């Protein structure tokens, strides 16, 4: 009898230890550029934890958060889930395990943690850094009578570039896709990066800088002025940023585009489509004389479901996903800028990429839109479209933004 009880106890305690399957949700693991990275993480983890297995569940990007919210609200979520940094991450922190003190040595080597944290701690392990830079088509600059080697440094420089494009009349100056309102997100953070002081960035993040304040109004006014001056192509509100805007840029139809460095690197795609010699890059300047700066923040990261019965093991896998060894594959295949600062980027050959990595190594500033709430971003999307259509004034749009809770 005693042995029976004993062996039963053994069986019940031993079973989970050699047959744990971690369910991991994402919207990327099937992407050809990311597939090798995810496979590598699984392989490394399963080798280190014999018997345990990783099961990736890739959800369609457009339904991801609806499904995640539904599953988490029903206590049926995955063990780990991928999140976009900023507002989307913060909306899910209530379901995530606090990770402070759980990451060991890795913690010291992680950038971009601010976008996965709240005052109460860190809730996700960042994988990548996201930033906005302006890419330009050197061939079109030459066509417009501009020096392809002289990238704009100030707002006046940019105004001259756009004047030349308008005078030439064959290609719009700055590509814009604002169908989902993403054009505004990029514009907002890129301009704010160069316009705002560190204190103003912090105030905005804390919800203490009103949308009707001069600093924020200046960003919205810049959007309206640039549109009025003819910098943007017509029809921006019916153009998707991903990928209509960028496809147009890759066809050589537009001079400049505010693009991404992220888990997908635009320099890689642009180099391939336009030829590396035709791709230039600069930081978006802002109205006024301030030096242009690079907005960057945590891109994507993994959170552990606090209700997961295998939370400890899930944390281990998150560490594997964020380790330099595994992320190296992501960088090599997709050009992903990783949050792990131990990454070796010396192998990169693209001129545009080298320039960007140089900027990243020095100082970056916060990505303002990532510090707005999900509800504010949604309202910003809407206001940005009506601003472009001239259906609302900047003052009214800013006032409407202030009405939306943080």
């Amino acid at each position, binding site marked *: 009898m005693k042995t029976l009880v004993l062996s039963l106890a053994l069986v019940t305690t031993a079973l989970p230890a050699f047959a744990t399957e971690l369910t991991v949700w994402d919207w990327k693991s099937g992407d050809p550029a990311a597939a090798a990275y995810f496979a590598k993480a699984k392989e490394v983890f399963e080798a280190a934890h014999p018997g345990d297995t990783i099961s990736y*569940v890739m959800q369609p*990007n*457009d339904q991801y958060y609806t499904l995640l919210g539904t599953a988490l609200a029903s*206590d049926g979520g995955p063990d780990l889930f991928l999140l976009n940094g900023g507002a989307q991450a913060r909306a899910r922190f209530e379901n995530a395990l606090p990770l402070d003190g759980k990451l060991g040595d890795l913690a010291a080597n992680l950038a971009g943690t601010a976008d996965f944290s709240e005052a109460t701690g860190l809730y996700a392990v960042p994988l990548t850094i996201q930033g906005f830079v302006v890419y330009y088509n050197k061939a079109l600059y030459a066509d417009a009578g501009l020096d392809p080697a002289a990238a704009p440094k100030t707002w006046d420089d940019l105004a001259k570039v756009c004047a030349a494009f308008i005078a030439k009349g064959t290609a719009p100056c700055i590509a814009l896709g604002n169908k989902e309102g993403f054009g505004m997100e990029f514009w907002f953070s890129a301009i704010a990066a160069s316009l705002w002081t560190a204190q103003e960035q912090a105030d905005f993040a804390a919800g203490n800088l009103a949308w009707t304040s001069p600093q924020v109004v200046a960003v919205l006014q810049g959007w309206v002025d640039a549109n009025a001056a003819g910098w943007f192509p017509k029809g921006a509100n019916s153009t998707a940023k991903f*990928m209509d805007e960028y496809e147009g840029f890759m066809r050589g139809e537009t001079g400049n585009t505010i693009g991404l460095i*992220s888990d997908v690197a635009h320099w890689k795609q642009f180099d391939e489509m336009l030829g590396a010699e035709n791709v230039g890059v600069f930081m978006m300047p802002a109205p006024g004389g301030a030096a242009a700066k690079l907005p960057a923040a945590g891109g994507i990261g993994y959170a552990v479901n606090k209700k997961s019965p295998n939370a400890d093991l899930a944390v281990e896998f998150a560490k594997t996903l964020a380790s330099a060894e595994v992320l190296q594959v992501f960088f090599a295949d997709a050009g992903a800028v990783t949050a792990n600062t131990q990454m070796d980027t010396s192998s990169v050959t693209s001129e545009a990429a080298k320039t960007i990595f140089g900027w990243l190594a020095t100082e970056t500033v916060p990505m303002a839109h990532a510090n707005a709430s999900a509800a504010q971003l949604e309202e910003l999307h809407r206001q940005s479209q009506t601003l472009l259509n001239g259906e609302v004034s900047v003052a009214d749009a800013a006032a409407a933004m202030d009405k939306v809770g943080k």
Partner: protein
Amino acid sequence: MHWVVAVPMALLALSCVYPVFFTVNNALKDNKGYILNRFGIVQDPSVQNFVDAWGRAHLGEYLFNSVTVTLGAVVLLLLTSSLAGFALAMLRFPFRRVLFIVILASLMIPVQVVLVPFYRTMMGLGLINTRFGLILAYTAFFLPFCVYLMTAFYSRLPREMVEAARMDGATLLQIWWNIMLPMGRPALLTLGILNTLYCWNDVLISLLVLQKERTVMVGIAALRGEYTTNVPLLCAGIALAAAPIILLYIFFQRQIVDGIAVGAVKG
């Protein structure tokens, strides 16, 4: 006079065929070729996208899931709705009207409205991640309309038929199986076709219920990435997924049109 209306009608018809051309034409391009030339006819066609969609995007396996689930749901839908329709139209029993109205009312609940409670219900019953669960979910979602149509159809048939069969000593179950099911064939055919379409094209319910195994439309939805979408690959996937349905339609066009005729009209 005929030609004056025939021309716009022909243009409309052309617009209905254009998507097929668009899909196949782009599926034969590579990604770079598509980005550089979206509208043009494919220059050097390649079937690589179809190979990738079938293998790398797993549409091959997903097709099997779709076929299983669609078949299962359609069979279950036809059986339950014909059974209920027979009772509601021909038999007298308490609460008949109330039950009919409850079924009709649930026609008005869109999926989005009940996402979380529906998911929890499925979870509570242990139906998440099972094909059977998805079959039940589809049946529940598309059933109200089927019950309505079958009730409407059967209520136009002479009730004396049932009485005569009863005189001969047949049980109600026998009457349903031997008389009502065969008599209901046109309406059942209509419903079979419509529900095959609904189940096959559904994304949201399938995403919720079947998270480890996938159905083919979910596989296609997943081909649209966050930052990039390989449109030619997507087109190849769509062509593969739509092919069975289009073939079915072309093959059974006669029956479909007649079926809809009798099924809808008699109602």
